[in-house]
């Protein structure tokens, strides 16, 4: 079962949480990414999230498989929204259940960083002054075509 969801409508988070209720888990951490009202000090109206869904799902599942292998956790799942989301709306949800709290906190952080680095979802910022820009960073590409670490300071593509 693929536990990385891509959704073009709102998702019942309670249902996602229930899938993480495992008897071996002693704790649960979640990370939620929300649409913020500003970007680089400029007021944002909605943000459009565009995704290449087949690769989002497959690469997202690779990340989940990685954390199951590398960390002592009981279960995890994640959800990424697409479409135009207003300020305050939920864009990404990550849940991690683990026997001990350390791994749950650590895996939440690892997963959002890897999702942002590797999963092909693009943000289209709609500013209240009427401008529309794609948010992006400059990424490196390794010889196999896999995403390499991104470099900060890439700025905004026109």
């Amino acid at each position, binding site marked *: 079962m693929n536990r990385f969801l891509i959704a073009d409508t709102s998702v019942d988070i309670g249902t996602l949480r229930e899938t993480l209720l495992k008897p071996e888990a002693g704790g649960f951490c979640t990370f939620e990414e929300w649409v913020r009202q500003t970007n680089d000090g400029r007021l944002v109206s909605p943000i459009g999230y*565009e*995704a*290449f869904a*087949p*690769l989002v799902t*497959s*690469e997202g599942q690779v990340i989940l498989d990685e954390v199951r292998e590398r960390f002592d956790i009981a279960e995890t799942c994640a959800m990424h929204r697409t479409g135009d989301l207003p300020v305050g709306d939920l864009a990404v949800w990550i849940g991690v259940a683990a026997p001990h709290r350390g791994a749950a906190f650590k895996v939440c952080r690892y997963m959002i960083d890897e999702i*942002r*680095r*590797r*999963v*092909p*979802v*693009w*943000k*289209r910022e709609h500013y209240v002054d009427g401008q529309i820009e*794609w*948010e*992006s*960073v*400059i*990424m490196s*590409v390794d*010889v*196999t*075509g*896999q*995403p390499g670490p*991104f470099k900060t300071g*890439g700025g905004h*593509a*026109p």
Partner: protein
Amino acid sequence: MPGLEPEYFAQPGEQAGRRAETRETSVTTAAAFYEELRVAYGFALPAGQMHVAVNAAFCPWTRSLKEGDHVVFIPPVSGR
């Protein structure tokens, strides 16, 4: 001369003015195909700042293309 199925997202999608197409071409690698489209549509981003996926899997730019391949050029994702 393969007929390829490129699909465009984000900036390249806006610059191409379309989401997808079927395109006849004489090129045989992903890198050459991107350069052909870059000339045709004026893509701003060089291949070095992009990834490419063929049939929904990341691959190197040297990947050979064949008839019917679905090709997606992946501009930098929103990393923050």
